[in-house]
């Protein structure tokens, strides 16, 4: 990619420019990302697919400030929230208290927190479950709480690292709908990482296909299908099929 990404415009929610991230691994360096470049516009929902080892999670961690770039730049305009594959709720807090903690750390005053947490849990359809503790919730419900907690951070950009990867198909389908609805309502920018091509096409305005070891953006696929999309629709399957072929090619090139 040759365009000069350093000219950041207001339209962009995040930009990554020739990002390289390497970790010490024994006495060698493990290069997770090499020269990854991408831009995402405000309000866009972009999916990243890639085989394991393509540095997708590393990219999100750098954007969230959890890992440092070795070279290049990663910049997010505004606040970031990050959701993981596991809900990672604090087990000693109730669903509402988990959301309230995010509000508290954001600086929301005490009297508003409870009300706001209720409202956020309502948005993810968990009214009535405010006082449950994480171990009393199903996997899908835990991810809903995690989504409410991420929304509580009032971020401009929501990073999602295979958030529905561990859920059963029906629950995942429902969460796709809810995520899409919340995205449409809120105008959030979402960067969604998955290894599932169909999920990527189901959700994304664009799908970025990452190469493996080291990771960078290999291909970009624009998804022009109207929303709401259905995971089993033939149009969607065709695009997903092409992406899967790319991924397979990628893996055979690298002998994985």
């Amino acid at each position, binding site marked *: 990619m040759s365009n000069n990404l350093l000219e950041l415009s207001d339209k962009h929610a995040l930009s990554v420019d020739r990002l390289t991230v390497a970790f010490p691994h024994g006495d060698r360096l493990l290069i997770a990302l090499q020269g990854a470049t991408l831009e995402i516009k405000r309000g866009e929902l972009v999916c990243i697919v890639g085989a394991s080892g393509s540095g997708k999670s590393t990219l999100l961690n750098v954007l*969230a*400030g*959890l890992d440092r770039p070795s070279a290049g730049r990663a910049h997010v305009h505004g606040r*970031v*929230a*990050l959701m*993981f594959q*596991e809900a*990672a709720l*604090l*087990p*000693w807090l109730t669903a509402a208290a988990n959301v309230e*903690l*995010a509000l508290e*750390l*954001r600086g929301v005053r005490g009297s508003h927190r409870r009300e706001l947490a209720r409202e956020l849990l309502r948005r993810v*359809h968990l009214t009535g*479950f405010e006082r*449950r*503790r*994480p*171990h*009393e*919730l*199903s996997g*899908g*419900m835990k991810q809903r709480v995690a989504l409410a*907690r991420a929304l509580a*951070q009032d971020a401009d950009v929501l990073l999602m690292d295979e958030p529905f990867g561990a859920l059963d198909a*029906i*629950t995942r*389908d*429902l969460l796709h*709908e*809810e995520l899409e609805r919340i995205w449409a309502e809120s105008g959030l920018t979402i960067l969604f990482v998955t290894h599932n091509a169909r999920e990527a096409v189901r959700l994304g305005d664009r799908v970025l296909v990452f190469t493996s070891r080291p990771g960078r953006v290999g291909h970009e696929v624009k998804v022009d299908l109207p929303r709401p999309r259905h995971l089993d629709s033939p149009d969607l399957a065709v695009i997903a099929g092409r992406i899967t072929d790319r991924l397979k090619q990628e893996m055979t090139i690298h002998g994985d």
Partner: protein
Amino acid sequence: MATELAAKLEVVPAAETEAAPRRLPLAGIWSSLWPKLAAILLGLTAWQLIVWSGWKPDYVLPGPLPVLQRLTQDLTNPDFDLGIGVTLRRALLGYAIAVAIGSVVGILIARVRLLRKAVGSAILGLQSMPSIAWFPLAILLFGLNETAIFFVVILGAAPAIAGGLLNGVDHVQPLLIRVGRVMGARGLLLYRFVILPAALPSFAGGLKQGWAFAWRSLMAGEIIGIVGHQLSIGQQIQFARDFADTEQLLAIIVVIFVIGVAIDGLFGVFDAAIRRRWGLGGEA
């Protein structure tokens, strides 16, 4: 429509937990109580049988009945109760100081890498060291007084408490720490909202172990060194030995045992409450 379906589908596991049969609280207490009562009865019976066997004369090894009679007599004696009070006050005060010191030391070692390298293993070493070994030194340092006793009690309990906290902090799930950082909790905030609560189950284990060490060290200290002119429990044991009064000896041992069991029970309640809240044990 679809979301309503979601609600229906996902209510299932919650409904299951709700549907678990609830027994009457009284029945629950009884079911946990009767094995203990049976064990006590068994112990008393064994004791009585040994006495009846004539292995030792009555004045050396009295049976449970005279000992319990002596105990009820003792308990109405204000000096005896005062002695229990003296010992309990020492135990609680010494333990409280140990908790404070142990917690601060534990956090410092967890936070400061250099400190951990320097004294991390020393803490573990101190944990396994019987603190009563310090007592002669304590007497020389502080004199034969309560300070010496507190010294061994604290030295017995604080390392276990620091160790429990350190262990808890070390084993916080890395994912929870990442979540905390993503939410903007850094430094002390991260400790307050994520790391310390996550470490609480392990810390509770350290508190319990610390209490056991404090109680043992205190008894040993009180028996070895007569401190002041207060009739502490340990001192009364020592007097009973001097007068070859085994009835009294056994009565005091019953008191020590009952105090130990009662406080252990309190820790048990505390521990169970934490485990329930953290969702430990029940599921995994």
